[in-house]
């Protein structure tokens, strides 16, 4: 595709991001069913995945996800740590149900179990490590979407998205893209605009990294929480336009260097009502270290909107 004057098409921009995240790097082995997605084999033996096809498969998967009327019937799963954060964030933004960590055998087949769930769709990060849910889904008529590397077995996988499922940036990037596509197709986000949520939110954080971040944030927590109150109170789609109060418009973005992620990323533009609900349910399953962002502003009801002016001094973060 010829490059346009200044900008790239959505697909090209996405592909560039995927290249940066190493999504195109496969492994030294290639499963015969993945051959169609491979571009070439590098001199050091690694297979390169054709990202154009990855993008198209992502679109296909997003269409399937959007076709499910009740998003709660979708289960996103990752046994591996690299995918857990991405999976949780994905579920948060699309309304799906996330399972991070061990998949108790029998969740889809044993009706006696308390965790018995009959999903309509299953999304996995790795067919090899998540083989147990694949098997159970096959028994329960559940279609499966999975991110498949060049050496992943495609048995019982209905939609395989060719991608690198080994690197944390790669997994995060893919889930972020899939979430964005789903929201665009649903109409929650407009296709032209950039999604306010940063990709970094979907990346896996090493425990030490997360701990450092927490230590930095801890003393600043209450202070920043007050700042976040105005941010939350404002309905998202009036971000740039109708700002009745000039006061918070200026300090909000610049005066909080310690919380860049909070200001920019945890704030889906038009997805306020959805996100609010998501946060209601999200805090519980999220690992505390990584999720202080969301946890520090859990169920803040919309009712606080009119009253924040007066209530602000006395407002304490609900943690």
């Amino acid at each position, binding site marked *: 595709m010829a490059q346009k004057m200044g900008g790239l098409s959505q697909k090209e921009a996405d592909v560039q991001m995927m290249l940066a995240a190493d999504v195109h790097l496969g492994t030294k082995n290639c499963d015969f069913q993945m051959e169609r997605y491979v571009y070439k084999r590098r001199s050091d033996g690694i297979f390169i995945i054709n990202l154009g096809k990855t993008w198209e498969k992502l679109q296909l998967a997003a269409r399937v996800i959007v076709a499910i*009327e*009740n998003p*709660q*019937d979708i289960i996103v799963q990752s046994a591996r740590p690299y995918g857990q954060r991405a999976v949780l964030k994905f579920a948060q933004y699309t309304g799906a149900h996330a399972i991070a960590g061990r998949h108790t055998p029998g969740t889809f087949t044993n*009706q006696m179990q308390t965790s*018995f769930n*009959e999903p*309509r769709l299953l999304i996995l990060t790795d067919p090899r490590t998540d083989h147990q849910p694949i098997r159970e889904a096959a028994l329960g*008529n559940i279609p499966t979407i999975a991110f498949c590397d060049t050496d992943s077995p495609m048995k019982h996988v209905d939609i395989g998205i060719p991608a690198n499922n080994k690197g944390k940036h790669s997994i995060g990037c893919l889930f972020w893209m899939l979430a964005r596509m789903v929201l665009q197709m649903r109409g929650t986000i407009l296709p032209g605009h950039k999604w306010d949520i940063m990709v970094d939110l979907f990346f896996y954080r090493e425990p030490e990294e997360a701990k450092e971040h927490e230590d930095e944030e801890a003393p600043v927590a209450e202070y920043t929480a007050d700042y976040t109150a105005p941010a939350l109170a404002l309905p998202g789609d009036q971000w740039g336009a109708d700002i009745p109060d000039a006061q918070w418009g200026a300090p909000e973005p610049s005066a909080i260097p310690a919380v860049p992620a909070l200001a920019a990323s945890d704030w889906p533009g038009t997805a306020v009502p959805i996100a609010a609900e998501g946060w209601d349910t999200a805090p519980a399953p999220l690992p505390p270290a990584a999720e202080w962002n969301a946890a520090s502003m859990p169920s803040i009801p919309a009712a606080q909107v009119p009253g924040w002016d007066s209530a602000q001094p006395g407002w304490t973060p609900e943690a």
Partner: protein
Amino acid sequence: MAERGGGFGRGFGRGRGDRGRGDRRGGRRGPRRDEEEKWVPVTKLGRLVKEGKIRSLEQIYLFSLAVKEHQIVEAMLGPQLKDEVMKIMPVQKQTRAGQRTRFKAFVVVGDGNGHVGLGVKCSKEVATAIRGAIILAKLSVIPVRRGYWGNKIGKPHTVPVKVTGKCGSVTVRMVPAPRGAGIVAARVPKKVLQFAGIEDVFTSSRGSTKTLGNFVKATFECLLKTYGFLTPDLWRETRFSKSPFQEYTDLLAKPAKALILEDVDKEALV
């Protein structure tokens, strides 16, 4: 212990078909009625059936949905469903304190009109085994395809094609027969075929048919295959329809507890 086991074996061996039937039928008593009324569905399919959204088993078969609760089948076929204990087989395990005997019950269930089920359950007591086997039989109900031998007059009465089923060393072969031939088979498969609703058929079996378990499973397998056979009248392309889970997704989205509470309230009012 060993003597008792031996005694049972001989007793049951003799009264295999008839005695078993008489005894077991009498064994069921009143108290079970309470449990049967309060069915709380656990699976999505169960909930749809309880609501009455799914009227026939064929809808379930069309989408290959897994039937996990026997009440689903009872709700569809209910009164027409008859069951029969084919055999109670004592099986033993050796322990250092003698033998540990358990009873294996083979139960065939059917409505005589195209649906059969086979259940096998092993338990320490005969009654428990039979009860469990009946439940398993209901869970395994299968549609049986019937066809014509020659002229297509009246209702289908025989198998549509020659089919064969195998279990262990036993193979059972069913061949279409003209009307009036009746079920030409041994005592065991005859029972199963009667429950299936097949009126005329020629059968042929091979292998150790003495092993009732395998014999019965082989005929069941055979019946299973009747709908697996592609005949020219099935050549037409299928028109796909929405799966019940998709159609009734709003109803299913409501949490189960809410539905139960509603029911309880209604009962309380009445």
